[in-house]
């Protein structure tokens, strides 16, 4: 009985860690503007995907967005 409890507890711990690890990933994003780097702050999930694929538009100018460490 004791062995069974230990095994079940260990299994539950592993499953729990797997589930909690599936979280949205967030990144600090920026673009290279005319006066240097402009920070856009932390972006997550679909927002990151949209920024990277469509860029960031300022006054009809679209800039390539970078979401990684400097």
């Amino acid at each position, binding site marked *: 009985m004791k062995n069974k409890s230990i095994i079940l507890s260990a299994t539950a711990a*592993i499953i729990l860690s797997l589930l909690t690890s599936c979280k949205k990933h967030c990144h600090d994003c920026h673009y290279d503007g005319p006066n240097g780097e402009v920070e856009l702050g932390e972006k997550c999930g679909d927002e990151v995907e949209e920024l*990277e*694929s469509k860029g960031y538009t300022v006054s009809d100018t679209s800039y390539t967005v970078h979401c*990684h460490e400097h």
Partner: protein
Amino acid sequence: MQPCCIKRYFHTFARLKNIYFIFPFIAFLCIPAVFNAQVSIALKDAHTLEAIEGAMVYQLEKDEYRLSDALGIVAFTRINEGSRIYIEALGYESRIIVFPDTTQFTVELTPSHISMKELTVTGIGTTTRDKSGFRIDKIDLKNSSAMGQLNIPEALSLIPGVYSANLGNGIAKPVIRGMQGMRVVTMLNAMRFEAQQWGGDHGIGIGNAGVGSAEVIKGPASLVYGADAMGGVVILNDMSPLPVGEKSLVMKTQYQHVSRGAMSQFSYQQSGQRWRFLFAGGASSHSDFGIPKHLYAKNSRFQDLQGRGYASYSGDHSVHYVRYAFNAATTGIPGHTHDSLATPADFQISQPRREWTLPAQFIRNHIVSQENKWYFSHSEFHLNAGYARNNLIEFDEKVSIPSLSMRLDNFLSNIKYVYRFQQVELSAGSQWMHQINSNMPDAEEELIPNSTTTDFGTYITAAVTLGDVNVQSGVRMDTRQIIVPSDTSLSLRKNYQGYNYAVGLSYPKGNWIFRTSLASGFRIPHVTELLANGYHHGALRFEQGNRFLNPEYATQVDCSAEWSSEHTTIMLNPYVNHIRNYIYIKPTSERMNGMPVFIYTSAKETMFAGGEASVHFHPHFAHDLHIQFNGTLLRLINSDSASVSLMPQPRISGDIRYDLSAYSKGQVRIDQIGIRTVICDAQRQIAIEETSSPAYATLDGYFSISLGTKRRIQLEGGCKNITDTRYIDHLSRLKNIEMPFPGRNFYFGIQYKII
């Protein structure tokens, strides 16, 4: 019988013709069991005739272990006449016994501090090490973390002739006698494992949780392992089943301070009379590792999650395994940049980080296999099948859109029939592999096109004992077809064929074992080498394939001499490996968008010559003191030396260890303390665009302690690179950015045996 009745029976029989093929299998299952109800074996010391307790007795056909009791008795059920039993006991010479037709017999073991008769399982046969014509090195991986080893290639580098080629901490692959990547075949138990190893920035792809041991075959081994086994073979074995009736649950965790890295693993095993199970898993997380002068290697961080398990059923004449393993890793790619003006300082940072950033590699590997063995008095039949999926995704400039996304599907199967009579063992087998490489549509680039590869190989081998000489030999034929679909500009359809052979002799005499072998191997050009046409950012170059490349052919002559006494073992192993059509990559005078263009080509003749040596000594006055030194030397001779890059540095490694478990008493027992040194000489034999590497030396220390009367808790720890030496190994993929290996690294771990 009336003619009409005969006709009726004939028609009935004809309708059943489609099920004729199952008759052989039914016949196998229905063969009367020629076995004794229960057999007991008594183990005794050959000198004192005292019973030997705790000896491991392994029934080879059933893959079943049992331990001898206090009276030295081991009892087996369902054991066939002609079955083989391997007996191993601490302080005694191991033996293989062919089970006689009796229910009770005695085996006397000869006391010995060093055994030359460890079990060796090769594709040609199962025998003791002294009778194997081919030298195979085996290493225990269950406790590799005790020496602070991070991954399997690092653990394998303890073997003479084997190195680890690293790209930071998270990416490593084994190098055997100077060959790596596509020239080294990796086996997971009986299945070949493929994980895009053609890339210099692609690691071995397998975690070490649940892996019990590794065997390394050095040099060409295409006879049994087929095409690509040019440089050697690494065979990773799951943890062996426990002795019948036992179970075990072990959890361990370890911390490494140089990368603020944590690793946790568990393994559960249970062995019954018929069923046996293994479940193992683990996770690790490492930040950027520290280098001397308080800096850190930018983006050398990695995390992984791994698991493996098997369920095994042992029938009266058969044993079956279903195995599954997975590995999911997220690895930073250090040293990667699009900046043509980057300097080494750009890749060294003052604060380590852990979260993944660009560029990064996501790897997911799943392997499922089924292994079946039916065995009889003098023969065996093996039937194995498996499937492996490898997903390799690289993010280069965007975190949401991969630059590279490939999937490799691998279908494998193999069969083998073995027949033994007197001193002869014959085998015949076939292997089949179908591989599909696909580029996923969401990736921005394609480095190699979609392709399918189909292999088929068939072989026969023979192992014969003629007096004191043991001879193993065989021949093999392989075919490979590579198809790249014709709707692309890189369409290709190529067929290759290769013939291989091997012959090995061993001559054990007194304290000596002499071996010599001649073996061939061949490697078919990979799709990368044939059709590459793109930027390889990790190598800062544009690569062009060459569809006119021919297969490589290798022939190796290997000789070895081992001498063992009660206190000393000395081994010398020189070899020569001749290769035709050695494929390599060389620069051209062209540039593509500022990047140099490299093209794949081949050298007509290349010859490697080298040797390995080892000395293991434990003095009479201190039996528990072990002093071991290994040496490895590899040179390129008689060829265009500019064609071969990444030649390992000459190396001497030493290990001095004191086993204190016999002296420690009470609740706290020191099991062992040791120091290890690695000394590498400069490497000046370099290829085009390669720089030489200076000599270096490192020093490590380690210990392990057991707690409690039942020794359920083990503490292990140590320090790697005690002197904080700044060094860069010649095989490092980060040499071009002058990134050193990790600095001083303290590590500490706890292992708890719950059951």
